[in-house]
């Protein structure tokens, strides 16, 4: 049967089992919207800004592991989506973003609302397509979903000119895709895996360091089994939190710029480092020269060959899906006759416990001002560690990562790679759509929340009972901290003046607003905000926190991991 291009788009999304499309209409996508109107296979969520559409699709993808979908119009709709696309790209999140385009006949004519979307997004997508013929829509979308979700995942843009959505074509959704130029490796090389196991069994001061790849490949259980079997210390990156239970004694906390003393010291002084689904980012290892002052052998497991040996030299590279490789290594270790040297391991743990005893995350608990760390700690208790927590970018993000103990994957949702302020609220919407009965909290700053504050209206329209935890320090806190440490206390443009009354603001959008000023009110406010009475409501909790608090420990940029600033 012949269908219009727009009908085909909608049918393809249904065939893919898409539940939600986050979008915003406009001229170039009117045909598609008309078909969205007529169908009931998926729900369309009207956001208030296209950036939020992409972040919401991204939050949905992170919370579920499924591919998120966004739909935007040409020109400004498309450019508004770019920040969201780049955010997903940096964190390897599977998305399909469909953008409208001006009719093929006027492409290149500087037509109204024309922008070269394929050109603009090229450096921040896994792949993109311009569909020039209605006959190609189905196959292109099939490929888009396949590329987005396999290998190292990432966003794929499909740009569709308006006339293509009008033209008619035969519709048949392909069952499979075969692409000679795209064949992601899944299984690791057996010889390399054996070498890695041998190295692991010989380790005297081992360390396991894991990142977002563990979460993305749904390998948290495999990682836990592997780590417990070995009894080795483990650390997670900012993106990897929840990949290993944070309450487990083998967990040494997050590492990196704002990582724990014990994790960073163990990372620096280990003799065998097992890096899994992580990429030795500059925020993680600090100055590479300093990192290499201490010799260590490195095993690196990653699905993306280009991530291996990019920043550090690796002794045993293993390209493959983290989940499969971990399962295979675990089997080999169980079958091996030797065990790692238990005496050496014990000595190593004694050293780590000594580092741990410095209690690097302590803070002043007797202050008369609300300490942001305290808010997160209490929030952890009140939600029993079970919430989906999204964050924006800044100090609050680091405190959430440090003080909320994530025992499960996909619960911690933040923009680690691009560091996009404005991510938190729309991402929380996506997570809440994915898990309507779960508690979803957004930890934010008064700078960040104002970057997508308009989404409070979307939350009202769809009755999303998000809990917004604003750590309000009246500063662009992370900027202020750098200015205090490295710019002689010259707080250039980091003071957030003329803040709105957030309680009234929340109320004007139809939500519940709360303002909390004293430490003794923190717990009761959280209990109320997250409590049964307000279960159905979005609650905006504005915590007036100590404005001078800094995130510690800190490895200053360009310094080594063992050169931390401690409290």
């Amino acid at each position: 049967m012949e269908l219009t291009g727009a009908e085909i788009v909608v049918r393809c999304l249904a065939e893919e089992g898409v539940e939600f499309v986050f979008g915003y209409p406009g001229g170039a996508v009117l045909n598609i919207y008309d078909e969205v109107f007529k169908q009931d296979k998926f729900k369309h969520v009207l956001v208030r800004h296209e950036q939020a559409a992409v972040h919401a699709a991204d939050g949905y993808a992170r919370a579920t592991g499924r591919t998120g979908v966004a739909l935007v119009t040409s020109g400004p709709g498309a450019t508004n989506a770019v920040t969201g696309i780049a955010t997903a790209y940096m964190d390897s999140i599977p998305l399909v973003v469909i953008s409208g385009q001006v009719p093929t006949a006027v492409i290149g004519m500087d037509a109204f609302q024309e922008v070269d979307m394929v050109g603009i997004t090229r450096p921040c997508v896994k792949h993109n397509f311009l569909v020039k013929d209605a006959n190609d829509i189905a196959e292109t979308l099939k490929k888009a979903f396949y590329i987005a979700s396999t290998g190292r995942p990432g966003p794929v843009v499909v740009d569709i000119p308006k006339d293509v959505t009008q033209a008619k074509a035969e519709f048949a959704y392909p069952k499979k895709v075969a692409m000679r130029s795209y064949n992601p490796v899944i299984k690791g090389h057996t010889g390399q895996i054996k070498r890695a196991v041998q190295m692991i069994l010989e380790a005297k001061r081992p360390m396991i360091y894991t990142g977002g790849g563990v979460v993305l490949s749904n390998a948290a259980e495999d990682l836990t089994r592997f780590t417990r079997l070995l009894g080795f210390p483990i650390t997670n990156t900012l993106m990897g939190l929840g990949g290993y239970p944070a309450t487990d004694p083998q967990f040494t906390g997050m590492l990196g710029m704002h990582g724990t003393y014990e994790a960073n010291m163990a990372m620096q002084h280990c003799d065998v480092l097992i890096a899994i689904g992580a990429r030795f980012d500059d925020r993680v290892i600090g100055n590479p020269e300093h990192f290499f002052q201490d010799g260590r052998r490195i095993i690196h497991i990653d699905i993306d060959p280009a991530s291996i040996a990019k920043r550090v030299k690796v002794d045993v590279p293993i390209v493959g899906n983290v989940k499969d490789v971990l399962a295979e290594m675990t089997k080999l270790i169980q079958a091996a006759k030797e065990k790692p040297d238990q005496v050496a391991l014990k000595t190593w743990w004694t050293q780590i416990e000594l580092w741990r005893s410095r209690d690097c995350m302590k803070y002043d608990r007797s202050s008369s001002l609300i300490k942001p760390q305290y808010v997160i700690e209490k929030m952890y208790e009140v939600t029993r560690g079970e919430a989906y927590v999204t964050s924006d970018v800044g100090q609050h993000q680091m405190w959430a990562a440090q003080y909320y103990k994530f025992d499960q994957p996909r619960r911690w949702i933040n923009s680690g790679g691009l560091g996009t302020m404005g991510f938190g609220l729309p991402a929380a919407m996506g997570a809440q759509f994915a898990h309507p009965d779960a508690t979803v909290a957004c930890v934010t700053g008064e700078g960040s929340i104002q970057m997508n504050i308009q989404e409070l209206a979307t939350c009202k329209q769809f009755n999303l009972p998000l809990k917004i935890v604003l750590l309000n320090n009246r500063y662009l806190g992370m900027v202020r901290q750098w200015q205090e440490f490295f710019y002689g206390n010259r707080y250039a443009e980091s003071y957030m003046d003329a803040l709105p009354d957030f309680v009234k603001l929340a109320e004007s959008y139809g939500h519940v607003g709360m303002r909390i000023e004293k430490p003794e009110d923190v717990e009761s406010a959280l209990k109320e905000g997250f409590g049964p009475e307000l279960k159905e409501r979005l609650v905006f909790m504005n915590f007036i926190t100590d404005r001078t608090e800094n995130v510690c420990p800190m490895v200053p940029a360009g310094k080594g991991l063992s050169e931390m600033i401690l409290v």
Partner: protein
Amino acid sequence: MENEAGALSRVAGLFSARGYNIESLTVAPTEDETLSRMTIVTRGSDDVIEQITKQLNKLIDVVKVVDLSEAGHIERELMLVKVRAEGELREEMKRMSDIFRGRIVDVTEKTYIIELTGAGYKLDAFLEALDKSAILETVRTGASGIGRGDRILKV
């Protein structure tokens, strides 16, 4: 790589975004019209070349990447040089062209166009050998390369 619109810009964009240098880049469709073949000349340490290879492989449109310099290969580039050919120079240019096995493909009263093929260094040597003031214009294609003997790059 796939002979798709935009494939070239993905490669060029990759080099500029990641700060790799491109000395030359040539591309044209092959006997299989769904495929294009590109020869890129770049410079870098082994680590950098490894990264470039991996990053190129990651591009969805790229089917296969081979580092020709790893083994025997033939490299050829075409150059057209317009030179002054008046008075004494007329004989001189003809002679130089012959020595370098060039061909004169256009003749006017005042100029010649000399066509020369070879590895990049040979073309450089030719330009070096000419009287600078005699060179009016040059155009080069950049290198195309192919492995020697049994080394076959085919999909």
